[in-house]
Each structure stands twice: as structure tokens, then as C-alpha cells.
């Protein structure tokens, strides 16, 4: 009553699954994603190295040099209505812009992930309550919530980070919840339950690590959304306050001079456009990378 076994059955299978280099190779095959990554890296470097890159202070006015055109001597991108160097202001403006984008998204993730995991894993009343609240918040447009909260809290950097973070919560909660629901049905989670692993351990060791890739994708989409949001808030005067430069408040102060000196509006606009484009391209690339059906 034995079933024949080949001697030394089951050859050891070679390690064919993609390693870390494999990821990079597949990522490299998507030019838009690579361009996006390059753009993101450049913006981050500019923000970090701003004091080295900028030749002028972004806040000190030179009233003899008001509204110089681009390519004028000493000011490649010209100067603004108070004679401040446009390029230096753009460089320093990247700091607050990135700060808002990254911190708002981080805040949203830190709050949303535990709520999403708990509601997706336990379902029941927790889920009901969390979902109805997100439904209510989702019924309002993202920017309307951010503007409303920023108006209530008053304009400051911290407040717009909180406002944009809160406005992003529902989307992130839903993504974490959907992942938790899918993972809960996976055999490895069921196996952990059968073995008697505590819920807390299941949530931290099995659910959370396995939802990192979709969350990373979500982050790369919500950072540009937050950047756009912060530009809007600054434009409305609810964001970063002058004289500290942000791309949004540069746009806002430029609108008075739009007819005669359009460049002081065009340059921050281009900066916002390229930065959000880079993050979006990177996000698309990451999503494709993590999506098994796209391999």
C-alpha cells in the first residue's frame, strides 16, 4: 500500500522569482515611470539643497529691480513685483509645497491605515460606523473640505497639512479596508487564526505588510493631490503666508500683474504642473509594477 515515489522526488526548484534587481529592471522598461521618478528626485533634491542653489534670498525685496523680465542680467527667470528673484523663490517654494504634500499624505495614512484595517478585518459595527462616516465625507469634493477646514483652523502651514490630510482620509481608509477584507480571506490569514495567533499580531504581521504596495501607490497619487490642494489654499490666501514663498501664493500675488508681466505667474504654474505630473507618472508606474496582471 505504498504509492511509488521517485528516488529523490521533487527537485529543488531554481530561484526564478524576481529579486530586487528584477523589480528595477521591470520598472526601467516603463519610460514614463522613469521620467516621473527622475522628476520627483529632482524636486526633492531642489527642496533639500535650496540654500545652496538659490543665489538670492527668497524674501528680501530689492525695490530697484522690480518686475525684471526673464533672462535679464543676474535674474534668469526675472524678478517679481517686489524685486525678489523669481528662480530663488521657486527653489524655496518647493520646500513648503513638498512639505505639505508629503506630510498631509503621511498624516492621512497614519490615521487611515489602522481604521481601514480594523473595519475590513472585523467588519460588523466598527465597519458600519467607519463606512458611513467616510461616505458622508466623500460626498463633499476633496478641495471643498480642505478649504473649509483651512478656513476654520486659520491659515498656517500646520493647519493646511491637517486640512489636506483629513480631506484625504476617506480614500485611504477605503483602500486599507478593501485590502484588509481581501487579505482576511487568504489562506495564510485563516491559517494564523486556526493556529491561535492573536488578532493584534495578525493585523500587524500579516495584514499590514501585505498591503504596503497598494498603499504606496495610493500615497504617490495623493501627494500630487495634496500639492495641488496646497496651491489652491495658498492661492486663496488660506495657505502658506507671504513673505514665505510657496508656489500657490506666488500664483496668487502674480495675478495682479498677469497682463503685463505674465512670467511671474507662468513659472510657478509650470513648477506645480511638472511636479504633480512627475508624482502621477511615478504612481502609475508603481501601480503597474505591483499589479500581477501587468507583468
Amino acid at each position, binding site marked *: 500500500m505504498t504509492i511509488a515515489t521517485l528516488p529523490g522526488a521533487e527537485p529543488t526548484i531554481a530561484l526564478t522569482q524576481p529579486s530586487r534587481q528584477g523589480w528595477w529592471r521591470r520598472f526601467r522598461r516603463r519610460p514614463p515611470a522613469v521620467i516621473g521618478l527622475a522628476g520627483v528626485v529632482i524636486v526633492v533634491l531642489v527642496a533639500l539643497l535650496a540654500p545652496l542653489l538659490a543665489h538670492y534670498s527668497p524674501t528680501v525685496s530689492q525695490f530697484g529691480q522690480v518686475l525684471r523680465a526673464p533672462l535679464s542680467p543676474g535674474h534668469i527667470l526675472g524678478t517679481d513685483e517686489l524685486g525678489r528673484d523669481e528662480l530663488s523663490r521657486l527653489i524655496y517654494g518647493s520646500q513648503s509645497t513638498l512639505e505639505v504634500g508629503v506630510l498631509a499624505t503621511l498624516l492621512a495614512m497614519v490615521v487611515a491605515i489602522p481604521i481601514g484595517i480594523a473595519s475590513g478585518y472585523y467588519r460588523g459595527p466598527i465597519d458600519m460606523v467607519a463606512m458611513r462616516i467616510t461616505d458622508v465625507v466623500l460626498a463633499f469634493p476633496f478641495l471643498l473640505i480642505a478649504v473649509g477646514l483651512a478656513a476654520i483652523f486659520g491659515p498656517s502651514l500646520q493647519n493646511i497639512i491637517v486640512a489636506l490630510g483629513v480631506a484625504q482620509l476617506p480614500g485611504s481608509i477605503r483602500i486599507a479596508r478593501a485590502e484588509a477584507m481581501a487579505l482576511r480571506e487568504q489562506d495564510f490569514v485563516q491559517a494564523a487564526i486556526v493556529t491561535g*495567533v492573536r488578532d493584534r499580531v495578525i493585523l500587524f504581521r500579516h495584514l499590514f505588510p501585505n498591503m504596503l504596495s497598494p498603499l504606496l501607490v495610493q500615497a504617490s497619487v495623493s501627494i500630487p493631490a495634496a500639492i495641488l490642494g496646497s496651491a489652491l489654499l495658498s492661492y486663496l490666501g488660506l495657505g502658506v503666508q507671504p513673505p514665505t514663498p510657496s508656489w500657490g501664493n506666488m500664483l496668487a500675488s502674480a495675478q495682479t500683474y498677469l497682463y503685463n508681466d505674465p512670467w511671474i505667474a507662468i513659472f510657478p504654474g509650470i513648477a506645480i504642473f511638472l511636479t504633480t505630473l512627475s508624482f502621477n507618472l511615478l504612481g502609475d508606474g508603481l501601480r503597474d509594477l505591483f499589479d500581477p496582471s501587468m507583468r
Partner: protein
Amino acid sequence: MTAAVLEVENLRMEFRAPRNAGGRRVQAVRDVSLEVQEGEILGLVGETGSGKTTVGKCVVRLLRPTAGSIRFMGEDITAMPSSQLRPLRSRIQMVFQDPYSSLDPRMTVSQIVAEPLRAHGTHSRREAAGLVRRTVERVGLSQQVLDRYPNELSGGQRQRVGLARALVLEPRLLIADEPVSALDVSVRAGILNLLVDLQRTMGFSCLFITHDLSVAEFLCDRVAVMYLGEIVEVGTRDEVFGAARHPYTRSLLGAAPLADPVEQRSRQRAILPGEPPSAIDPPPGCSLNPRCPLADRRCTEEAPGPTQVSEGGHVVRCHRVQEQLDLEVARS
């Protein structure tokens, strides 16, 4: 008679379809009673959809049964709250069907196998590491796999890891849910032989769920045949495979091909017509009656009770078999 490790009585498990899908109840398991004795392998055999996996999930309390009782080593675990159940979980373990989804892709083999030990905190870190190493060796894997991730392993190796995880706590009862169905035939034999060896040396009891009759015949001491959420025939391996009485068991055996083509061509086979009916509204009376060649009016009206065929515990649920036996008794 040896003590029963697992006793399941009149187990019933219903699922309610979502309201937008009609809200009807699916009776996955309608009435299942079985026992697994100390040190035995009981095979639970049936087609897809017959409810065998649901029985397994109820036993490990991944599902809470609708009705009936489940006793593990004399203790009723049917509705035990999870805090009370946790210590018992170390003694009932499960091996899953799909070796690809049953291992966390982000954990190494040693982390996976150590998880039950960590969960129950019975061993120090060093003891645990040694135990993991020994267990991995015991299931026929080399030490090299310890730091590998599941996606670096073959299906057979993964299933060995799953087995190591289930056995590292030396459970009394192992629920094996089609552990070899997802594996290549060449690898299957290795895993089955390993399971038999481990069962002999470790002495655990096993509820082995499978749709593959040859696997059940190879492995199991006793076999229970399920059809539409009910056990239609139970007996020792020889009784079920050598002297099956229930029409369903017979057709199931007839449907499995024989290795010898001459014998295969010449034998008489009773193949049942049609498909198993839906578990949403099972037929009244005997669940097999719409397909059974022997069915008469009584079969469509009255559900057959268990009929003892032999002293040893060969039990069949069938009116026809019961009548036949009554006749034999009357003649003698």
C-alpha cells in the same frame, strides 16, 4: 474501543446569500455526524460542493456551526468563545489546499513555522529556533530553506512548510483539507508518504478531506462519503472500497478509472445521471433520489436514517440497503 479525539454530532452549517442575491439559505452541511478516533486517519470523501471543506472549517472553528455539536477530546468547542478556544487551538491544526496562498509571502520559512510557537509562547526563543529547525528537517526540507521566502519554493516544498507549521506544536488532531490536490502527481506521492510516516511516529489523529478516492484508499483507516451535505456511508477502508453498499458510493467508485485497461473496459459501472442538485433547495427525502437508479416513492418522501451494515461500524443511509438487510435477516 479507543477514545474519540473528535466527535461531531448532527452538524449543520447554513450560509445566507446576500439579500440582493435572493437572501436564500445555502445548506452547505445538513447533517453530519462523525468521530475521529485516537491515532486514526478518517477520510472525508465527496464531490466539489458536497460540504466537506465546510465540515473542516467548522471543526477548526473558522466557521461557527448553525446547529449541532463539535467535541474535541471531550470538550465542547461548538460555541466556545475565542479566548477560551485559543489554548485548544495549539492542539488542532490545519493544512490547507493551496500551498501558494496558505503561506504569507512576506515571511521567511522559519518565521512561518515559528508562528504557532510564538502565538502560544510555550518555548523560549532559542528552544523555538531549534524546534523549527528539527521540524523543517522532519518534513524533509533542508536547513537552507529556513531563510527563503515562499515564492522561492516549489509547490511541494511549500506544502511541506505548511505541514511543518501545522505539526510544530505536536497537535492531537490534524485537519488536512485536500493537501495534495493542488500538487503535481509526481510530488503528491512524496507528501502522502510523508504524512503517513509522520502520523505513525507522532501519533496524531487526522481528518483528511479529499475528492480523490485513490488518495483516500491509500491513506485512510476509515472513510466517510459525503453527498450534498450529508454523510451517506461510513466504514473502514476495506468496507467502503471493497463492499460499498450505498448507490452513491458505488457510482463514485465506478467513476474512478482503473489502472488496468482490460479490467477497466470490461467492468460493470453504474454511473449516476445528472448533476448534484443545488444546496439551496435540496430534494425532499433521500438527497440522492432524483439521480438514484434504485429510488422509489419512499425515497422521495422520507429521509433515510443510518443503517448499521456490519458490527464494525459500517453505516449506510439508504432505504434500499435497509430493506435488503431486513430481507436477509428475515430469511436467516
